[in-house]
Each structure stands twice: as structure tokens, then as C-alpha cells.
């Protein structure tokens, strides 16, 4: 196997590993109204792995970004409840986004 072929094989293996990882972890999120005008959202993956540092957004129904941050080491974020309808977005990458609408967030 020459250098070019070796490089191709390495790229293929990396892609394969990344694909398996991407498929094995389904992103999940839960949000709850704290009853004190704030909302806490927790992100995670279906295999139980942490979502600390993963991107998180709050967007209005008019697609305006109200909050753009990252989940903390506990995979959580607490934010002031926006006025009007909004969506919480756990953004674990392309095709790995979870949306929860404010009407589905309970105390």
C-alpha cells in the first residue's frame, strides 16, 4: 500500500468511526419551567453521554435569536423566560438539533 492509498484508508476509517458515533448518539433535551420566571433545559444523548459545551439557543417564533450560549458541565442552561412564544434549541450539529416549543414546557 503506497502513501496515497494509506491516506485514503485512514480517511475512510476516520469517516467510518465518526459515522458510527454520530448514529449511536441521538440528541435529547428536556426543559422545565422553574416557576420563578426562568426555564431550565438539560441536553444529553440517548446513550447517557454528557452534553456539556454543546450549543444551545432560544429563538422567537419570528426566528430572532434571543439567547445563544452553550450547556454547562452539568449539560444544563437556565434562562429568563422570554415574553411570547419561543423555542429552545439543543444544537448538537447538522441534523442533530432538538427543538422544544414553549407551549410544551411545563412547571
Amino acid at each position: 500500500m503506497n502513501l496515497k492509498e494509506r491516506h485514503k484508508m485512514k480517511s475512510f476509517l476516520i469517516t467510518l468511526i465518526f459515522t458510527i458515533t454520530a448514529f449511536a448518539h441521538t440528541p435529547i433535551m428536556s426543559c422545565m419551567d422553574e416557576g420563578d420566571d426562568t426555564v431550565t433545559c438539560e441536553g444529553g444523548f440517548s446513550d447517557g453521554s454528557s452534553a456539556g459545551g454543546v450549543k444551545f439557543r432560544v429563538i422567537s417564533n419570528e426566528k430572532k435569536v434571543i439567547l445563544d450560549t452553550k450547556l454547562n458541565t452539568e449539560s444544563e442552561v437556565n434562562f429568563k423566560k422570554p415574553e411570547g412564544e419561543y423555542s429552545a434549541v439543543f444544537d448538537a450539529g447538522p441534523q442533530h438539533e432538538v427543538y422544544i416549543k414553549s407551549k410544551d414546557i411545563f412547571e
Partner: protein
Amino acid sequence: MKFKNLLCIGLLSSTLFAQSQLMYTPEMTLNTGKSINLVHVQMHPYTNLKTYDMGTQHKGDQRLEPEEFYVMHKTIKTDLKDTLKPIVFTGKNEAKSYTSKYKAKKMGDHLFVMKPAPSFSEVEGIYLQMITKMFVNVAGKPTDWDKELGLEAEIIPLSKPYGIWAGSSFSGMVKASGIPVPFAHIEVELLNYDIDMENNKTTNMKTNAPQQSFKVIEFKANERGEFTFHIPKEGLWSFNAKGIGHNKKFKGRELSQDAVIWVQSKNIKEIEKLNKEKKETK
């Protein structure tokens, strides 16, 4: 005539023996965190034949409060005994029971354990203590469903006790204080009535069994205390491993320490129908 009476008493007694400890909340799988209500009732889940005062004692001794009620989440134990509120629950008759509220906020499994005080059964002439486990999962993250707690009487799930399609199965292992119970006698019952949590009563009977054997399904675990049961219908199912605890006496009388676990199954066709209805209304 005497023989007929004896037979009737025999049949009635075997039905009366099949008690379980209900720990009810309508939904064991939540899409997102929320506050939930629970109701705790000593009853017959299938027949609703009789509802019992929890913690009732022999010959009118003072009724005892539950010994323990707690939840495990990510292996952290939180005492919930203070959340228990005495109520009168109406099944076939009225009985002293409890409700409680819980904030199922964090993602993952919330494993509830109710250890009621031993309750005297007039029919059997013994004390019953049904140590009960029930799960609520938030958002689908698996955390505690397979945890062994080392209870005096316990069924440890080998498959998830929720997220079960009707027609699929549930597997578990019967243990007493951490030791497997070979050939444990297990009774399975469908919760055959809706529970009206606003008025604390049973409503709408769901199925009508053709004969006693279908009301309380009995089988035995294998030599390692393991079992698998194929769940034929959607609903909440009680698995009760009878008399497995090592404590055999309470107040000088026979004690049966049972392990109860509740599992929930869903009908895939019903969910397809609901999704279709949702799409149509959008």
C-alpha cells in the same frame, strides 16, 4: 350445597390473595420534565375486588404509616415521605391510601420505591408488605432503570420497564436482600381500570377475563430467579413476587414480604392513529 359454598369460598379466597400495591401515575415516559402526581393504593389491579387500608393492623391496632417512600435518580436517593398526603381512595370500597407530588425535572430515570408498613390481611390471616418499584423516564435518557437497590424483596429489571410495545416482553430478576430467589412465584396483573386522579377513584373497566386464570397470571422464575413475560396488551402491569423476603414474622404473626414492580406497555397501532390525527389537525 356445602361443597358448592366451599368451592365459592375457595375461588373467592384465591382472588383475594392476589393483592398488589398500586403506585400509579398515568405516564411512565415523559417527553420533557414536569410535575407529576402519584397515587398509592393497596388493591386488586385486575378485579378491583377490594381496596384495603394501607398499614392496617391486627384487631384494630393503630394503623401504621408507610416505612419508606423515596426516589433514586442517577444513584442519588431523595426521601419523599413528607410528600405523602393521606386520602380516601374509592375502588370497590373506600380505603385509606396516599397521593404524592413530584417534580420530575432531570432527564433520565426516576425510580420510586414505596415500602408500606406491613398490612394485616383478614382473609389470609397474615401480614403483607409489598415493596413496590415504579419508574418515570424523562426524555428517553437511560440512567437508573436497571439499578439494584438491595431491597428485602425486589424485582430488578433486565429489560426496561417502560418503552415496551404491547406484544413485546419484560424480563426481570427476583432477589431478596441481594440474593436471587430460585423459582420465585410471580403473579402478573393488568391494571384493568382507569384511575381518576382528581376524584381518587377507579373508573371504566377495560377487559373482561373469561376465567380466573386470566385475571391473575401466575408463573415461576427460573433457578436463577430470572423471568421473561410477554405482555399481550397495552397498559400498566403489576409483577408481584410473593413471599420472598427473609423477614417472616411481624408482631408475632406470619409476614409475607413481596416485591412489586410496575411496567408500562403501549399499543403501536394506537400511537400511529394518534400521530395521524395530530397531522390532520395541523
